[in-house]
């Protein structure tokens, strides 16, 4: 594996712990990822930050308009400790776009590709990284579209900031308008319970078990810790 990487920073003293890429399956994954992106993303090179023991991809993604004009975007993709179970993190490192929330960036250039609950990351797929880079390319293309469009539109849709984005997502999942989310707020937060034979809170007139019961259960499971209706976790430190 190590010959695949170039090294950044001084060689660290090992603490004896192993990172994902130091395990056999990680080594295999890295080789497979590298092979999958070599052709379509030749200007992204693997690197290893020895101090942080982090593997990353660094270089440029060149977006070509159909007329052929190229735009080079400096990009870094960092693979965290829990890769590939958790998706990598993408950064725009050339300050080509304003790193502000309205442009879906954190101040450090991290790309807000999607709501965590709507992740397009498919860890088990052999071409997961390639698909992820395609999503990053599309994200950057949308930045260029935004800059080029006189009415400043964000192509292919976006979510509201913060909790608004989650509410939009929940609303779409429940299939209704904003009032529907209010009707289910108590159930989503876990503060209320409802009998299966009761009328569904959506006011459809159907019994809950024949209406939203299953979809709400799936939604709550899917949201997990990202559920905005859950009460904030209190710190155990006093």
């Amino acid at each position, binding site marked *: 594996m190590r010959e695949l990487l170039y090294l950044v920073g001084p060689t660290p003293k090992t603490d004896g712990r192993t990172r994902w890429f130091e395990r056999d399956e990680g080594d295999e994954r890295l080789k497979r990822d590298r092979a999958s992106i070599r*052709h*379509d*993303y*030749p200007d992204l090179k693997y690197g290893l930050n020895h101090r942080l023991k982090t593997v990353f991809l660094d270089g440029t*993604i*060149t*977006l*070509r*308009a*159909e*007329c*052929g*004009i*190229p*735009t080079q975007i400096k990009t870094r993709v960092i693979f965290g400790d829990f890769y590939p179970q958790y998706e990598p993190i993408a950064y725009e490192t050339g300050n080509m776009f304003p790193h502000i*929330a*309205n442009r*879906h*960036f*954190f101040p450090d250039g991290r790309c*807000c*590709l*999607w*709501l965590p609950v*709507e*992740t*397009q990351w498919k860890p088990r797929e052999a071409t997961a990284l390639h*698909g992820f880079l*395609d*999503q990053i*390319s*599309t*994200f950057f*293309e*949308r930045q*260029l*579209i*935004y*800059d*080029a*469009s*006189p*009415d400043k*539109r*964000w*192509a*292919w*849709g*976006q*979510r509201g*900031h*913060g*909790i608004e*984005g989650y509410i939009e997502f929940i609303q779409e999942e429940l299939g209704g308008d904003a009032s529907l989310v209010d009707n289910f707020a108590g159930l989503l937060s876990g503060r209320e319970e409802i009998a299966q034979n009761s009328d569904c809170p959506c006011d459809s007139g159907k019994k809950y078990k024949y209406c939203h019961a299953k979809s709400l259960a799936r939604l709550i499971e899917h949201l997990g810790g990202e559920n905005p209706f859950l009460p904030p976790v209190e710190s155990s430190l006093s």
Partner: protein
Amino acid sequence: MSWNYDDSLQRIGKHLDSMGEIEIEKLVREADLETLLTETCCREIHGAHVYADISTFARIATESVADNNEYKRLIQGVHIYQREVSRIVETIFGGLRIHFQGSKLHALFYRPIDDTQMLATKAFLLLLVLKDFVNSVFNPSYSLLGNFSIAGGADVGDAIGTRNGRRNDRELLFLGACANYAAKIISSSGRLRISKATYDALPDDLRDLCEEIDDDEIYQAGSVSQRKLDEMLEKYEIEWDREKSQERVDDDKRAHPLKDIDYSSANELIDLDALSIWNNKRVLAVSIFGDITGFTAYIDRAESDDEKREALRVLHAIRKEMATVVAVDFNGLRVQFQGDRVQGLYHVPKDEEASIATEAVEAAIGLQSSMEKTIKEKLPEAEELQLAVGVDIDTTLVSKLGTRAHRDRICLGSAVENAAKSEEKCSGGQIGVSKRVYEALPGRLSKHFSYDSTIGCYVAKNLTADKVERAEKAAAAAGAPAFITSNKSGVTVTEREREGARTIIPGRSYAED
């Protein structure tokens, strides 16, 4: 028709590779510039540049009703005016008639070499003679067309003379502040204006005929009687005789009778070189002017021979690329090079205003794309240069008029004048289009333009082909697929399905508060 980055890059490279070494020397002896100058054989020429214009020709060319003798009379009048003015410049004054830009003459005096006073004298007297000719000869001969007045400008200084390379339509090009300034100081009020440098070089008796008009150090000719003019012409040994001028005009009128002058519309792209006094075109056309802003300052700043050679290499690369964009990438006519500016015309499909306007504005965007994306990639030294483009549409007379040896491609009409004016008012990187062009454009193009009251037209800034293309993708809806293709030169993301493309559903971008 469309603009393509790879094609543009390739042809610029090919032109640069084949250009050969540019030679620039000071012109130290009298020579025939028509045969001496080439794309690579260039001369620094000390001279007096003169522009003289009858802008009313353009208005008549647009407003005259077709199937009317007035239109034929206009064609005849412009033709005969150009012939006699050319004779006055070349035969009587010994100057060089560079060309007519529509109705505007550009002439140069460079003989006797480096004799600034004589060059300025000839330039100033030429303006006076042309004014007298229009008043005393041309207007009485063409009273049915109107009462014309001539506006003129002159400046003296150094400019670099060169030529474009095409075999069949080679044109002399002069680059330098004086070649521009003489045109810039022309007023719309029919006055004859000269620069301070020209005024300073004049002998006292001619200076006495001028008055300073404002703080811009511009002088203009006062009222000069025919007697005074004749006296000055005699003193400076210029043998112009208004009666002989009248005879030549009368001879020309007989030789070019209205009944033999023909004009028609055009269903296909006009072959400019097939036009003549006998065969003219009257078409609904878009005029487009593209000018390299900052080029005059760029070449005037060049001090060493290497810097001058570099500036000329840049000019020729841009010039040729502009002509190719106008005529090859888009279905237009490259009418003329005017120093560092190119004039183009779009007129097909016949009378289809929206299509013609769209093609021309796409070409304007193509010009900006070449300038910003490919010229600067091939020639980093051109980084500071930009392009200003002006566009307008209206009925236009298209012809090739003048004396046998020097027939110029002529486009006359209000749209030609307005497009040129818009270009002059635009800054580098801007495209200025008239209200009529703006309203003829499809939304995908018009949305990039907004009205600029200081320029007086609709303006788009830094608009290149990739931006137009991307703005069209902005309508892609949430949940719709994106299509991705890759090759060694990059990744292309579109909202339309493409052969061999990968399909993804783009994530809906999100931001934490």
